């Protein structure tokens, strides 16, 4: 197709238009707004698909499309353009974002049916799509930063969508702030690039990595890593993801599982050249990934809130991706591949969770579920497939991607390789454990349903879904608008992995962007695979022993120290609260006091002293003409003296 690049802008424009119309349109759009949003998202997906097939039609070399719209900030040597670059990596993301995005739009039509602010919800969703697409399509880091903060804004708006819930508002603020810390890293990285290379466009920067010192590259790399940590909820900036579950479930599915949180992986993969040239930074990436992988998994094990449990698992799965990205050319492709498959099955899982909550009066506590498989079969099946996919059940998509990552981790070689690989392997086990736990607590066992809470007393209840306090939930299958997306995603989570791995299709597809080299683990790949499956089965077994055999207590047992810590996100929040929040409050309070007393006091003090002095001088003005005369005479005398002295000198 001739000059297909002109279509790229449309990718972003369509959802952007939707956002503008829906947010500025006002109430008259309330009735049709969600359809408009969905259609535009779908349009964006269609354009993406067109471009994709067009791209397939080209040779591997000329597949990259560029579109230069206009010069954004031109100041002397500082030249930032609004220009797009669509290569295989971007294309992968475009399809994922628009595809999953569209599905979730459809899902939301049903899910948000009863919310009077549905129009605005779709506006925000479109805004998010636009920003996310901008992020992955940008051809320079500054424009990427634009999209980066844009998705942050969208996530802020969507997490805090039910603003009347203080918890939601706080969670939104927290998410944005933590992300801001990451953004700081990104902006510093851009500054470093500018001062080092004089530019921050992908092409020149990544091409010129050879011309500067490794130290500089390490610095840039670490800054990029900080940014990735913020956006992808990696340790130490992961604390916001759990709270982000305050947002409506479709949001959790789209933003906090499938797309936005994976932006960090995109960033690192995109900047692969930099990391390749800075091994230290690369190792740091891998370590962060490994740590988060375990962290998220442990947290996931302890949560009783289904969404929070899934959030923990998201964290840990992204940990896998980051770890893979930290392995260099060996892992980039697998990171992205896991990202895509994860996008499918995690989105599916979240939608399933949403469907369950929908049927259970928005109950999120898994201890109050149980035995739901009879009541919502479709949800059960799709959720189950997602479950199998995520634990990496052989044949399903999760297996293909995760297994490769574990291999690559071992292939790192040396002790590092063993440690990273071991962690990845262990993570797979824990994943199996907590996902099985979720599965069992939700769909199996006996009913542990509780009467619906009063929405006024329990602010966690999502509004718009009519809840009659005290009424027992009557689980029912969700409307078709919700089930269809779940089914489609389930298909994705079953077959995507196998599809991608057909004679390394995915790897070859990405190879031009992220040069690929085969990793050679110390032990044979087969061994790794087998051990993975074994670990997986162990995890499932333990979970079954704990939750399948015995009845699940409705009230959570006190649990071991680790469990209790894990319930509180391994005390991360407490740490933040004590160190940052408290300290900050004290600092600001004392500063306010100082500003008033010290800085202001000095000035007012001088004023007061001048006043006092003049008050004393004032006494000289006693109004007696004669004393004035005295001063006159004295003055004259002084003058004469002065003149005499002058003439004397």
């Amino acid at each position: 197709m001739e000059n297909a690049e002109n279509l790229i802008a449309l990718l972003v424009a369509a959802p952007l238009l939707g956002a503008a119309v829906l947010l500025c349109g006002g109430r008259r759009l309330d009735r049709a707004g969600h359809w408009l949003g969905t259609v535009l998202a779908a349009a964006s997906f269609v354009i993406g698909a067109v471009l994709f097939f067009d791209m397939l039609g080209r040779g591997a070399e000329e597949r990259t499309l560029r579109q230069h719209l206009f010069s954004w900030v031109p100041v002397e040597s500082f030249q930032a353009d609004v220009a797009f670059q669509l290569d295989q990596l971007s294309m992968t993301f475009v399809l994922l974002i628009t595809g999953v995005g569209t599905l979730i739009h459809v899902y939301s039509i049903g899910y948000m049916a009863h919310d009077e602010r549905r129009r605005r919800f779709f506006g925000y969703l479109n805004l998010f799509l636009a920003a996310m697409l901008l992020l992955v399509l940008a051809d320079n880091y500054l424009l990427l930063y634009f999209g980066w903060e844009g998705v942050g804004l969208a996530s802020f708006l969507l997490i805090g969508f039910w603003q009347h819930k203080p918890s939601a508002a706080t969670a939104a603020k927290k998410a944005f702030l933590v992300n801001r810390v990451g953004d700081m890293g990104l902006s510093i990285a851009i500054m470093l690039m500018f001062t080092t290379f004089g530019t921050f466009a992908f092409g020149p920067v990544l091409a010129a990595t050879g011309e500067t010192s490794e130290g500089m590259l390490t610095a840039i790399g670490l800054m990029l890593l900080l940014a990735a940590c913020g956006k992808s909820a990696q340790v130490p900036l992961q604390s916001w993801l759990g709270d982000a579950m305050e947002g409506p479930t479709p949001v959790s599915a789209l933003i906090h599982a499938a797309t936005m949180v994976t932006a960090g992986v995109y960033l690192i993969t995109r900047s692969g050249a930099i990391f390749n040239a800075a091994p230290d930074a690369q190792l740091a990436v891998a370590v962060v990934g490994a740590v988060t992988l375990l962290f998220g998994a442990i947290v996931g094990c302890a949560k009783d809130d289904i969404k929070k449990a899934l959030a923990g698992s998201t964290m840990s799965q992204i940990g896998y991706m980051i770890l893979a990205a930290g392995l260099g050319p060996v892992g980039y492709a697998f990171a992205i591949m896991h990202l895509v498959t994860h996008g499918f099955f995690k989105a599916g899982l979240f939608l399933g969770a949403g469907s369950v909550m929908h049927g259970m009066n928005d109950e999120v506590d898994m201890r109050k579920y149980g035995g739901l498989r009879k009541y919502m079969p479709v949800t059960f099946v799709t959720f189950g497939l997602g479950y199998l996919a995520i634990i990496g059940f052989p044949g399903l998509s999760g297996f293909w991607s995760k297994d490769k990552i574990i291999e690559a981790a071992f292939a790192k070689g040396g002790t590092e390789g063993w440690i990273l690989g071991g962690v990845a392997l262990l993570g797979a086990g824990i994943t199996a454990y907590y996902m099985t736990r979720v599965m069992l607590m939700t769909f199996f066992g006996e009913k542990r349903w509780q009467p619906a809470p009063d929405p006024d007393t329990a602010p966690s209840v999502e509004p718009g879904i009519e809840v009659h306090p005290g009424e027992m939930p009557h689980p029912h299958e969700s409307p078709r608008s919700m089930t269809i997306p779940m089914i489609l995603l389930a298909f994705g989570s079953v077959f995507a992995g196998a599809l991608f791995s057909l004679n390394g299709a995915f790897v070859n597809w990405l190879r031009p962007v992220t040069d690929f080299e085969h990793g050679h683990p110390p032990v044979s790949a087969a061994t790794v695979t087998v051990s993975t499956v074994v670990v997986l089965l162990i995890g499932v077994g333990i979970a079954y022993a704990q939750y399948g055999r015995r009845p699940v207590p409705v009230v959570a047992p006190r649990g071991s120290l680790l469990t209790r810590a894990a319930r509180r996100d391994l005390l991360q929040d407490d740490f933040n609260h004590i160190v940052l929040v408290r300290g900050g409050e004290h600092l600001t309070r004392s500063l306010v006091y100082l500003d008033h007393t010290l800085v202001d006091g000095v000035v007012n003090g001088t004023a007061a002293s001048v006043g006092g002095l003049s008050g004393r001088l004032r006494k000289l003005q006693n109004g007696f003409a004669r004393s004035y005369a005295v001063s006159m005479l004295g003055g004259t005398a002084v003058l004469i003296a002065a003149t005499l002295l002058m003439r004397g000198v």
Partner: protein
Amino acid sequence: MSFPLLTATAALPAVGAILTAAVPATRRTAAKWLALAVSLGTLVLAALVAIRFEPGGDRYQLTESHAWIKDFGVRYELGVDGIGVALIALTALLIPFIILAGWHDADSLAVSDSGPAAGHAKRWRPTQGFFALILMVEAMVILSFEATDVFLFYILFEAMLIPMYFLIGGFGDRAHAGTDENAAAQRSYAAVKFLLYNLVGGLIMLAAVIGLYVVAGNFSLTEIAEARASGQLEMATNTERLLFLGFFFAFAVKAPLWPLHTWLPNAMGEATAPVAVLITAVVDKVGTFAMLRFCLQLFPEASKWATPAIIVLALISIVYGALLAVGQRDIKRLIAYASISHFGFIIMGIFAMTSQGQSGATLYMVNHGLSTAALMLVAGFLISRRGSRLIADYGGVQKVAPVLAGTFLVGGLATLSLPGLAPFVSEFLVLVGTFARYPVAGIIATFGIVLAALYTLVLYQRTMTGPVKPEVRAMPDLRVRELVVVGPLIALLLFLGVYPKPLTEIVEPAVRHTMSDVQQKDPKPEVEAAK
């Protein structure tokens, strides 16, 4: 001798001010419309200035020059460079919105009992006075952006204090904590503080101006600058430094730079929202503008000498202002401290001595004007509805007045310089420009970004979200007049955020000139330097 466009641009509001003041007491509405019309006319003239100005042309264009006080070589000399054009445009653009936003601010005075007895109610015309003063300020500010004669500039720099004093002290915020007397006392305190601070600065500057005359023999900025550049006019190092400090002090008070900032929160807190916007978005810009135009051009060596200290002060302003903003309980004071932080960015950009920094600073002046105007005016609408400035008195506004909350959020996002909104471009330019020369300063300054997000979002969360407070339950959403005020501002913020090129094109040549004045070049990227 072509049509004196610059004089006209400044003269129109001045004349308008007199006419507005002359409107009889009973015809309040007429006065308002007159003032609005005049401000719009000024906007048209300012647009003409921007059109007639060729970025590629001479440094100063549309110049006018007439002898004024022959004995001291004081001339009535006008001329604009890109920076001046940008700021004149900003001023002319903001004033109509300020007038619209303050449409009813002075009425309560006119009808309230606090006015004088019915005896001379005939001559009691607060509304007329309010708008006349605003127009007067506009005239002076515009002229000070045009003046290329140091003495002329000084006079305007001082003269604009008088109307500002009355605007702050005379037309305070009705929404206050405590009794009327209490509020009046605080108000007069704020007004006097504003006046004293700026007067002290002005006096020190006057000394420096006289000193400059003694050294240079005339007041013409262009001539002195040329003489300096061509080396005809030598200054002893210490003389130059002293003169520089004299000028800089005055501008730093106006800007305001830490630790000379404490007048701003009081003034902005006590004044009505439109006046607060006038202070921070328009009048204070004269200070930063003058740093660029006078300090750097007249005393390049001294500027370079003082740069490290100033950068440090600017850094303190950035972090300190942001931290104090976090600690505020009063919406308007919070915005004031945020402005202090932003002024820190502007000053840092000016003295980073890189083209990115200085263009960024100039853009920042414009963008900060727009963003603060948007945020402060919406805050003003909010406060006028509830009658309180305390953050704690609000909550859940988003539910009852979504449009108000939305605009407030956009203003806030602009304040925390979100990409896509104008301030981001300028802030990032300043950061990059500073980082190129002073990496540590650049990194510390980026912490300001996080803090900005903190105070903005905390403000938004506490006022707009959460359960609806009973007091705000009946709060009406934005009215048409208010939408007319906020809408265009937000549109501009978005446009300049995505397409700031028109602005940068105008500003860039002027910055290039300034850079050559201080004989500074952008540091080369490491890679090229290596080659």
